[in-house]
């Protein structure tokens, strides 16, 4: 009986013993990019500097959490002119809101290494709930988390006034990110 209980405990403990909890994001292998249409033409951009704090245990995805903070000054908005323009009050109003933050509230497993990351994205002082599908790819040295979602810039007041005309700069911004992380 004692032996049986011990065996059961060992079996139960085994997955946890082998599982890795990913807690350290690797900035150099991570990226946050976006694409939007300007006069019907796709324009690519991204952010060079962002920090990720996370904890993800594939055995317990519901306990996972992530916080991403993006330095808006590190933007590549397609051209130097657009980089400068994006800092202004009509866009990010960067002197008041220098960062974009995402804080997770819930992670749901969808099966086959796909997850739904729920949380709040705050841009220009406006918090908005987001649901972001994320694919987890285990790797030898690091795992990667790839996500993609459509952000409607006007939900955050990004591009106000004369820029609110979505015929020139589309409302939809396709955001794609990859966070690489190692565990312990």
């Amino acid at each position, binding site marked *: 009986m004692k032996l049986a209980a011990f065996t059961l405990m060992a079996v139960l403990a085994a997955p946890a013993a082998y599982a890795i909890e990913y807690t350290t994001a690797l900035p150099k292998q991570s990226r946050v990019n976006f694409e939007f249409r*300007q*006069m*019907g*033409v*796709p*324009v*690519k951009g991204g952010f060079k500097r962002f920090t990720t704090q996370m904890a993800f245990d594939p055995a317990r995805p519901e306990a996972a959490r992530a916080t991403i903070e993006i330095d808006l000054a590190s933007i590549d908005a*397609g*051209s*130097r*002119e*657009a980089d400068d*323009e994006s800092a202004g009050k009509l866009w990010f109003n960067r002197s008041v809101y220098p960062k974009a933050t995402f804080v997770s509230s819930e992670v749901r497993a969808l099966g086959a290494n796909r997850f739904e990351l729920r949380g709040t994205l705050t841009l220009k002082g406006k918090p908005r709930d987001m649901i972001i599908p994320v694919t987890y790819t285990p790797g030898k040295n690091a795992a990667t988390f790839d996500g993609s979602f459509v952000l409607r810039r006007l939900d955050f007041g990004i591009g106000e006034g*004369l*820029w609110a*005309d979505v015929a*020139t*700069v589309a409302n939809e911004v396709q955001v794609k990110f990859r966070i690489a992380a190692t565990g312990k």
Partner: protein
Amino acid sequence: MSASNRYSTTAIALHWLVALLIFSAFPLGLYMVGLPLSPDKLKLYSYHKWIGVTVFLLVAIRLAWRAKHTPPALPDGIAAWQRRASAMAHGLLYALMVAIPLSGWLMSSAKGFQTVWFGVLPLPDLVERNRELGDMLATVHQALNYSLAALVILHVAAALKHHFVERRPFLQRMGLGRKERT
């Protein structure tokens, strides 16, 4: 004088159409570059690119037409050096009308903005996005345009001189004024 003193109707139509487009795209280009970034600026850039692609296609048609149709001979009495200068100037005009839209297209790609003709037909990006290359091509595009402007002034001045100063029936060659009758 026979009809051979006049370019073919197709050549004349293409000449004036391309002239009209160049006289739209050139000042538009000068105006738009100085504007602060705005939706209107983005629109003007698109229009400028659409005109440029159109010029490129029309010039390709002109070159194909020119290859199969001999232009009317220059009137008698024009000095040999002027004939040579005229041939050279026309060759250069054609070269610039090809090179300018081409440099604009490449610049646009290098700057990371694909050219989509009338917002419908995407042109392939022949070069990768590269800001330094984009700036370099902008300088090339500008220099080629100022060269074209200088040549166009020469082209118009020469035609006017032949017509009004030397009093030769010159502008009729390009369809201006009444056709001469024999």
